[in-house]
């Protein structure tokens, strides 16, 4: 947990934060609305003896009292998908409409891709990209299992991605950059999540993340939305990345609230200061909602 000590100045109730990081995560699933309503999914899980606690902020997010939700009939039918509660946040923030074209820049293993497809009622196109060929099978497998028809899977470096494969698509309506990151916020499920973590590693990742986010802004139409998210606490990978991209592109940060407790994004960190609008980003800490750690920022493309 030493790697977390540098965050003491920015996290309220730091003891509570550390204690939450030591606890295992609740097991949660997301109901797949392409297949079933949350009520029926809850009923079917109950029929198999799986007790369910529904989350208020999202009717489709269920805490289940089994660590193997995959061994249930609702899972077999693609009614539910094992997805950490806080990882259901970014597609909610993106909030695309049916018929939209959405770019999912770093899509594998596909839980958020399938959720985006659900947000557009599986009507439109989700370009689900990942640069890691080995992870495409998980991405395709999850979309397939959940009956997603609207996804097109691509395998390119997101920093240099184009829409050339879709000649009729001039720009996307929305984009999600759920960026590769140091994953500090997954410490509750991955005991080695903090190995190698630190400011230096995060600064290095920040360059990659900023290039991907800038690319997403470039591919999105004026008036469109780009959501940037990570599962790390490191400001070098969060506010610093967004701050840089705000300066490099025609975009601005907009406010959002998904109904979970959170802290505003930082405007200062060490010697660095960030645009005041970074306070519109949200930091989700493990002791806030009994989840993993997460960061999300919502950008509007202005030109």
């Amino acid at each position: 947990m030493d790697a977390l000590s540098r965050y003491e100045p920015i996290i309220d109730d730091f003891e509570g934060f550390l204690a939450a990081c030591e606890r295992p995560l609740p097991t949660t699933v997301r109901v797949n609305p392409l297949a079933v309503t949350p009520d029926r999914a809850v009923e079917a899980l109950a029929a198999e003896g799986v007790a369910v606690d529904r989350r208020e902020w999202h009717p489709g997010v269920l805490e289940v009292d089994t660590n193997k939700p995959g061994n249930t009939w609702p899972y077999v039918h693609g009614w539910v998908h094992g997805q950490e509660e806080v990882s259901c946040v970014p597609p909610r923030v993106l909030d695309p409409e049916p018929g939209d074209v959405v770019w999912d820049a770093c899509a594998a293993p596909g839980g958020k891709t399938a959720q985006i497809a659900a947000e557009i009622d599986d009507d439109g196109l989700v370009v689900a990209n990942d640069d890691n060929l080995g992870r495409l099978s998980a991405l395709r497998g999850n979309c397939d299992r959940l009956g997603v028809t609207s996804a097109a899977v691509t395998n390119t470096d997101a920093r240099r991605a184009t829409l050339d494969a879709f000649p009729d698509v001039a720009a996307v309506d929305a984009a999600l950059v759920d960026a590769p990151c140091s994953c500090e916020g997954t410490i509750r499920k991955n005991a080695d999540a903090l190995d190698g973590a630190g400011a230096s590693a995060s600064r290095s990742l920040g360059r990659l993340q900023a290039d991907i986010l800038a690319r997403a802004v470039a591919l999105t139409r004026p008036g469109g939305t780009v959501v940037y998210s990570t599962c790390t606490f490191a400001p070098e990978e969060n506010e610093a990345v967004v701050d840089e991209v705000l300066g490099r592109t025609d975009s601005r940060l907009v406010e959002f609230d998904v109904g979970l407790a959170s802290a505003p994004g930082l405007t200062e960190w060490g010697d660095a200061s960030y645009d005041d609008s970074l306070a519109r980003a949200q930091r989700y800490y493990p002791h806030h909602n009994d989840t993993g750690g997460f960061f999300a920022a919502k950008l509007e493309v202005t030109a």
Partner: protein
Amino acid sequence: MTDNDSQTFGRLPATDAERSVAGRPTRAAVVDWWTDRFGVPRTIFESYTLWEKGAGKVWALPFDPGAPVPVEALGLTVLRTRQEHWKPTTIAAQRFGREATRNVLRLDERDQAAAFLAGEEQEIAWDGDWGYVIAAHELTGRLEPIGVGLYTYGTLQSMVPKGRRREF
């Protein structure tokens, strides 16, 4: 006529007259197959573009991306053609099979559904057609497709892919 390139997506021709790739199924034939075999509404793929990639694998996408696109996957695989008996995919049975009115084999006993999911073959008395069927069971009061079976000589063979099999 050109040959099918199994590495790229090619749009299904609307009809036989518009076919330019040898052996490629037409859009009309795919819709006919689903409606004839399973009695689903003719509108089943109305809002989808249909594509072939691989040998006879048909994909459905609820979007028209214009020209054939160089991507890894384009929508959902719904049917395997270019073989004597066309075969629906497991996920197509689940996704589109709820509207089926024919050749749906109900596995009403809980152990029948479990055996099917485990990939087992089972003897079942049923008066439907031989061939590919949609195996289904009731879940929360609704008939829910599990996957595709092959019914012949009083035997139901499970076509659930190995990676999707489960033993409850």
